[in-house]
């Protein structure tokens, strides 16, 4: 009755929720039971965002606690560290190389963690972490907004789901005029 537990984390406005929608639908399309959990309301105002997706033959809990996440898909470096304790020691972290300094850093006195600290902390948490230039890839394709689909591409390499399944769901979820862009974003992610 083992489930596959995903946590998608980032900052409000980065496209975390659309990515977790797509991930959920890919699970459904693969014939799995799926639950997804996220919180609305106050957290939307530029705050930290956590969305969880659980796949399995049968899924009970819509939510997992610390140490029980198999795949951490992070949209931002600082948020990676904030939610890192959710990852199992055997889990996989895929991290977008992007810094979005919160108010406490940009106008307050706090420091954004340095690259060395970020990597050391990640390395202590898991052997399998990948810091990927998803934002840069999306920008190469012409828009920051494709970062989430690039990241899903990067995640898809670790999952036993046919590429077509992903592309079918993406086709359903994104407006037609952005479809080709998102296909390319997904393909670019798979190569990171």
């Amino acid at each position: 009755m083992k489930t596959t537990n995903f946590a998608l984390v980032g900052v409000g406005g980065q496209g975390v929720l659309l990515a977790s929608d797509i991930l959920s639908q890919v699970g459904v399309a693969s014939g799995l039971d799926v639950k997804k959990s996220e919180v609305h309301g106050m957290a939307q105002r530029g705050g930290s965002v956590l969305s969880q997706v659980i796949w399995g033959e049968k899924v009970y809990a819509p939510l997992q606690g610390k140490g029980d996440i198999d795949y951490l898909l992070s949209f931002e470096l600082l948020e990676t560290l904030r939610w890192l304790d959710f990852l199992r020691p055997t889990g996989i972290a895929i991290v977008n190389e992007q810094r979005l300094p919160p108010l406490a850093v940009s106008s307050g006195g706090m420091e954004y963690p340095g690259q060395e600290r970020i990597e050391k902390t990640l390395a202590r948490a898991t052997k399998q972490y990948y810091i990927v230039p998803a934002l840069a890839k999306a920008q190469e394709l012409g828009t920051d907004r494709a970062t989430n689909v690039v990241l899903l591409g990067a995640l898809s390499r670790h999952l036993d789901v046919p590429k077509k399944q992903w592309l079918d769901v993406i086709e359903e979820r994104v407006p037609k005029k952005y479809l080709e862009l998102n296909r390319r974003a997904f393909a670019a992610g798979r190569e990171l």
Partner: protein
Amino acid sequence: MRALLSGNEAVARGAYESGVVFASAYPGTPSTEILENVAKYDEIYAEWSPNEKVALDTAIGAAYAGKRVLAAMKHVGLNVAAESLFYSAYTGINGALVIVTADDPGLHSSQNEQDNRYYAKFAKVPMLEPTDSQESKDFVGLGLEISEQFDTPVLLRMTTRICHSMSIVELGERTAAPPSPQPYERNIQKYAMLPGFARARHPVIEQRLEDLAEYAETFPYNKIEWGDRSLGIVANGVSYQYAREVFPEASFLKLGMSWPLPERLIREFASGVEKLVVVEELDPFLEEHLKIMGLKVAAGKDYFPIVGEFNPRVVREAAHKAGLVGKPSPTPESGVSDLPPRPPVLCAGCPHRPVFYMLKKHGLVVNGDIGCYALATLAPISTTDTIGCMGASIGVAHGMNKAGFEGRAVATIGDSTFWHAGMPPLLNVIYNKSNTVTLIVDNETTAMTGHQNHPSTGRTLKGEETSRGDFEALARAMGYEEVRTVNPLNLKELEEALEASLEANKPAVLISRSPCIFLYKERPGLFEVDLDRCNACGRCFEIGCPAIIRSSEIDEKTGKAKAEINPILCFGCAVCEQVCARKAIHTVEEQ
């Protein structure tokens, strides 16, 4: 057809499928999306009411008229509507009425963690509790049937994780009107709760509760799932799902109806297992009842926390302490407790920011209210002293000022919150004559819950044009002479109006009106800092705008960082331009 739906979407679908024709609510996290989704069905009339009590009275009226009806609110909304819940329990409802109460364990977006199962017991009405989206849909229909069969309002209790989690739902078709629509007939003994009539209703309600308890024994979602009989878990709502995962082999008594409780079924379960354990989020509601029944509970709230939200790990760790399961894997500790926080903040360009900046400058005690502007409580704006519940600001400020203290209290309340609960306390200020200044911070929408319409937006939930409530005219009708309206993005105008309101030293209303940035199609402008002029005085940082960041350029004299504006976040509100004494901030033309 199967679809992945949130619990809230599923409740809306359930209303559609089971022939609901009328729905009302006031927005409140985590319940808001229920009515937003109900409103999409042409077959259902749906409205935002000014507050939950009005929503419930309205729904009760629709049910008296013989219809199938849904009302929805967050847990504290039921406090506002409590009086209506209690009388409708006495009168019964003729048609059918399901009242959704969405509790918020973990306080994701609320001022408390109250457990509304007690309302069912308190008001003597039945309560259903779904464990996923499928049941959220199904329980609307079942609740309506119970409501019709027993002539009672039915509470449907959701929690944040049921409301906002998505799971797979089998969709059905809309059933036509209920089999026997109940035409309204005058019956004052039943519907007019004069003491003499109400006295006669009380025994009817007690009998109904006994009948409902009998019904609960066969309610299909009160269900024993036999497994290993050495351990028997009693659970409800989302706690059932967590417990299922933690105790895969155990026997379960799943309670889909949490009031009244099926005592015979509970006893049958208890006598069939060696150890009886209750797993329930928040208060020991089920546990207390089992104990009153004389049952021995091997583990309940002595292990499973009362405070906060559950997840499988919380349940597993508590179960381990209770000696029920083996040691869980250790919780990772990456030692990152010193990270810079990223709390929600007032958006760049938010029209609330200058108001609170100005209140801070004048050293006032600020009694705040429920809405985005509660975020002004925290650094760097740090301007709000008290926040209680919807509408509390004005009454609390009046009390402080009347009682006398070193200082001057003012009230700040949003437009939607004012319509919800601000009118009686505003009237009280002038009736009982305190020098309270009430600031209505009008951003022309219910912003915090996601920009819903309200009585002064000029639109209904169904998108129809309608009247616009007028704060100024209302205050004057109450007797206020000191009524001012300002654009808060003009600091000079704002400051003059605030000072005039304070100096009048009598009841005053100051309306600060400027739309929420989400109501603009495009931003009105973009600003940048002239680094040659900036002397790093830091005044622009004090307004707490997320678009104003520390530049890498350091001022030679002070050694401090100069300011810079993030061109992506800047909305062009021009507040920073007005606080800069060096005139170092100016507009830039957008490409």
